[in-house]
């Protein structure tokens, strides 16, 4: 386009400064996680220090950290699988057999997302208490899968609609039933889209804090709840906190980076493709 070959250094410097500024808090946490506890709270801040892995050892040796991590994995995977199982048939039927009401159903699904969690905190808490679901992984999976369901349906719907109906019709001519058509034709064609949807759902469930803070205490608590327990200022274990936090966000950050381009559709409810 403009003056090809000319590198715009002043622009590069500005954007790099912005990018490093935005990333700085994460970077600072990463640095802290390799410091000793004393170096982590030193003023002036220690920029050059002898890196140590002792915080990571300390965190990983704590049995409870692993329990929280396991809960996070179970909850985000379980919720995602459940949401996909509900959403794939729904998105398939709406994408390929739209009726007059399809648009209304999609909008209504989106509207359930608008119900503020805090507005139903009391009944959910009481229901979960009476059903024995408080502080259980299953209870959290139920609620997380329902709350990501609209996003998952929307995102799958937008991917499915890009598959030409002719391909599915061809398989139907060959005598495939709808279930076969969905499993053997549509799903393989849409694997990248489904993977991106699953990643977004995993990210959202992994980072979900409201329900895990309010519905779990010890047994089913996830990493969000665990990290929140560091909020008291008395225990200055910043280095260990940093190590635990780094471990908690690293996999999700990588997932996010991997699927950022595709997840835009899910996040914008189809407004941006």
């Amino acid at each position, binding site marked *: 386009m403009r003056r090809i070959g000319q590198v715009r250094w002043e622009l590069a410097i500005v954007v790099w400064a912005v990018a490093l500024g935005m990333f700085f808090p994460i970077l600072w946490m990463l640095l802290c996680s390799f410091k000793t506890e004393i170096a982590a709270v030193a003023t002036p801040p220690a920029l050059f220090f002898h890196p140590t892995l002792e915080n990571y050892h300390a965190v990983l040796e704590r049995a409870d950290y692993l329990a929280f991590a396991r809960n996070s994995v179970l909850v985000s995977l379980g919720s995602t699988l459940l949401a996909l199982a509900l959403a794939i048939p729904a998105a398939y039927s709406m994408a390929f057999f739209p009726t007059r009401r399809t648009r209304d159903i999609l909008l209504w699904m989106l509207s359930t997302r608008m119900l503020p969690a*805090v507005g139903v905190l009391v009944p959910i808490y009481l229901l979960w208490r009476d059903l024995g679901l408080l502080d259980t992984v299953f209870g959290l999976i139920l609620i997380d899968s329902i709350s990501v369901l609209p996003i998952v349906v929307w995102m799958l719907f937008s991917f499915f609609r890009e598959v030409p109906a002719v391909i599915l019709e061809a398989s139907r001519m060959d005598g495939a039933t709808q279930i076969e058509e969905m499993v053997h034709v549509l799903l393989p064609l849409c694997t990248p889209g489904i993977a991106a949807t699953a990643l977004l759902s995993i990210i959202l469930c992994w980072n979900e804090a409201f329900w895990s803070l309010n519905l779990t205490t010890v047994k089913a608590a996830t990493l969000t709840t665990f990290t929140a327990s560091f909020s008291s200022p008395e225990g200055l274990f910043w280095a260990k906190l940093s190590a635990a936090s780094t471990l908690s966000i690293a996999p999700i950050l990588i997932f996010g980076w991997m699927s950022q381009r595709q997840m835009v559709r899910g996040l914008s409810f189809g407004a941006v493709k």
Partner: protein
Amino acid sequence: MTGEVASKPTRHLHRPLLAPSVGALFLWMAVPLAMTLWFSAEHYNLLSPGKTAFAGWENYRDLLTHRALWIAMGNTLFLVGLVLAITLIFGTLFSLLLNQDFPGRNVCRLLIIAPFFVMPTVSALIWKNMLMNPVFGLFAWITRSLGFGTIEFFSRMPMLSIVLIVGWEWTPFAVLILLPALHSLNPEQIEAARLDGGGPIALFRYIQLPHLLRPMAVVAMIEMIFFLSLFAEIYVATGGGPGLASTNLAYLIFRDALLGFDVGRASAGGVIAIILANIVCFFLMRVVGRNLEDLR
């Protein structure tokens, strides 16, 4: 299309495929909503179970005549408004920057969107402890070194501190949506504007900004949904304090319900939160609904 022929044998399968999702969401919406409405008209405290009584409007009157609700409403709107402005302005700016060609552009994009993927409790902790702590924090060291003394972020300006944290988390979201939108602009249109002698400001004002308005509206609405019930950051960073200074509606309801055990009052607060969200939702539906015009 071939609709008539092809969809005849499948029509009966349409409902069973859709029903689980619709049913689950319907249950999720109807049951708690009805319960919230019901409880909000009752005297119901978890500390004295079994002693419920009809309260009529009393919980609402209680809430509406109490200072706490209005402070929480004010804080909620302050937070929503300010963070929206911050994320939209910086999100647009960063997207415009990232839309240029320069070395390391992809890495910069990854670095800028990173905060969005950090779990809210961790974000709040990084800012609260490592950056804003008045004794050991990095900011305190910087301001002291420059001779300005220490800024007591969370005791002097708790709401602004929360705004800063949430703004940092959600500006990347605006970039995530606005950058691809900017990218989808027809390059010929930009080239034409340039040939007509339009500078970068005119280009932004007359071509890029109009193109971004709809995605911006989507960003604003989705963020509003999240900000109206923002919880984890406040829970971790300030606990709603000092006093009520950083208590928003979500935190107030949490306090009433799970710390105060007053189910009736918390439910009345919940109803107010739902009404607020519905006003927002009304506008979002109109914006998003336009994307489905072709289904009609």
